[in-house]
């Protein structure tokens, strides 16, 4: 044991954290969000009468993901589970029923065994109800499996980009398959990798998900403390950013002149200072590579409790994706 500290947090009953934080989110967004009765699922207040619906969700503990991205131009609803636990099928089903306008529902979520199974069961149940669904799993974490097994990769902060494109497409297009096609292309164009300096904790058990020596960091750490690709001595920020971007460009073939969106995402407890220093180097490095940055997000978008560290995500743009990215959106955690 390197570190015997306990997590230090302001909570009430440790079994109620997911429910209480959900209530706090709804309270803070009562003009734009409402909760479905009895379950932890949030839907837009301004759901249009007719549209292909976008449903996201997953385990809690990654706030502001997922419910923070429910709103105009993003997801229409989010179904949430307990901390680090996928939502149950009935939660997903009830949410599906609440947002289906007869035009079908697209499920977008991170690629984890628990999420896959629970969403699949929900989709079968929805099918029984004659609601059309289609599933898009986000698998952007290049550290989690080789490229030829991309469908085994984990979904991390890239969820955000995929939801942004899906939300915009579902406003602009009427055709289910057209929305699916561009969203899947956005998913396929998204790559992420993170570095962790210290662990997040599971509030219910009041323990950290892993231990790291004070002078080490882990490249490729997952959002639930899943092991990464390498554990290394701490290095200057610029070297770490270069390592992360190198992992991404080895995985995805960018051409000089390609345009991307860049996300520097706080895994939880890193400072804005560190994120912005990473932003500086990422822009330098991408410029060296001839990759043009269309837009940059820096902040807490997809976290793992108080994990310290950050992830870098690139979404490669094409004309259609860029146009959709530029459309306005309005949610708790993302406004454009």
């Amino acid at each position: 044991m390197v570190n015997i500290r306990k997590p230090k947090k302001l909570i009430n009953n440790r079994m109620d954290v997911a429910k209480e934080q959900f209530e706090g989110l709804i309270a803070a967004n009562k003009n734009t969000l409402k909760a479905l009765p009895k379950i932890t699922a949030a839907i837009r207040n301004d759901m249009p009468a007719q549209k292909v619906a976008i449903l996201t969700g997953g385990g809690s503990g990654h706030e502001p993901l997922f419910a923070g991205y429910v709103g105009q131009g993003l997801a229409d609803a989010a179904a949430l589970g307990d901390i680090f636990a996928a939502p149950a099928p009935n939660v997903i089903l009830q949410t599906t029923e609440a947002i289906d306008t007869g035009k079908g529902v697209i499920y977008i979520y991170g690629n984890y065994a628990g999420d896959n199974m629970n969403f699949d069961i929900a989709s079968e149940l929805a099918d029984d109800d004659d609601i059309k669904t289609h599933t898009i799993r986000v698998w952007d974490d290049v550290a989690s499996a080789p490229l030829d097994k991309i469908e085994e990769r984990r979904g991390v902060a890239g969820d955000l980009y995929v939801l942004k494109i899906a939300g915009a497409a579902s406003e602009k297009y009427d055709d289910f398959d057209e929305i699916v096609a561009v969203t899947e292309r956005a998913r396929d164009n998204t790559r992420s990798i993170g570095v962790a300096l210290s662990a997040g904790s599971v509030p219910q058990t009041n323990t950290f998900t892993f231990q790291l020596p004070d002078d080490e960091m882990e490249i490729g750490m997952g959002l639930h403390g899943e092991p990464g690709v390498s554990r290394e001595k701490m290095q200057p920020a610029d070297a770490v950013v270069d390592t992360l971007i190198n992992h991404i460009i080895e995985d995805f073939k960018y051409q000089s002149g390609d345009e991307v969106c860049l996300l520097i995402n706080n895994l939880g407890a890193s400072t804005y200072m560190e994120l912005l220093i990473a932003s500086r180097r990422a822009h330098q490095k991408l410029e060296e590579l001839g990759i043009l940055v269309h837009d940059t997000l820096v902040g807490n978008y997809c976290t793992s409790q108080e994990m310290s560290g950050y992830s870098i995500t690139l979404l490669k743009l094409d004309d259609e994706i860029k146009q959709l990215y530029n459309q306005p959106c309005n949610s708790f955690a993302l406004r454009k």
Partner: protein
Amino acid sequence: MNASQLKLTMAFVAREMVASEPLLTKADQVIGDGDHGIGMERGFNAVIELLDDNYQAEDVSVLMKDIGTTMMSTMGGASGAIFGTLFRAGAKQIKGAQNLDTETFHHFLAAGLAGVYKRGGAKPGDKTMIDALVAAVDYSKDLSGALENNIEDIAVIAQQGLEATKDMIATTGKAKTLGERSLGHPDPGAISMALIIAFMSQHINQQVAVA
């Protein structure tokens, strides 16, 4: 055993599983994300609520199905889907059964296993609850008679299936990227699977002793 006897047994299992939370939590902390104990606690607490004094099931299949539905709708996570599927798919196979004898229990487990295969796509050797379950299914295939005569042996075999997961490298779920580092540690879901059968055995044997 009939539905009302099984109700008492499953209520006992539920209480014991809730009490096993720390053990399961520790196991998932080592090779998973640390929430398996909390998930099982949540699911079996809901089962305890389900099986309250007013609850009466028509037959053992309805009882097992209700348990499965309860777990599936309250747990979430991989184990909510997996154990929910186990109980629901198993119950469907033994529809109408008034008595849970060894054959019926075997059919329950075997159909549950098939459901789990279909749901999650994992195979024996992948270091999941399947490894404890498949051991129980294979062993119980050739048994017959009252469950109280066999449940203890089935539990022992499931425990062996669980022990075997220590020598496996995880290929699914959150332990996957651990690779070889998952060696030496049992799979948390397999512990749950073995415990469920062990607690059934413990309760059934107590009942026999009392009777």
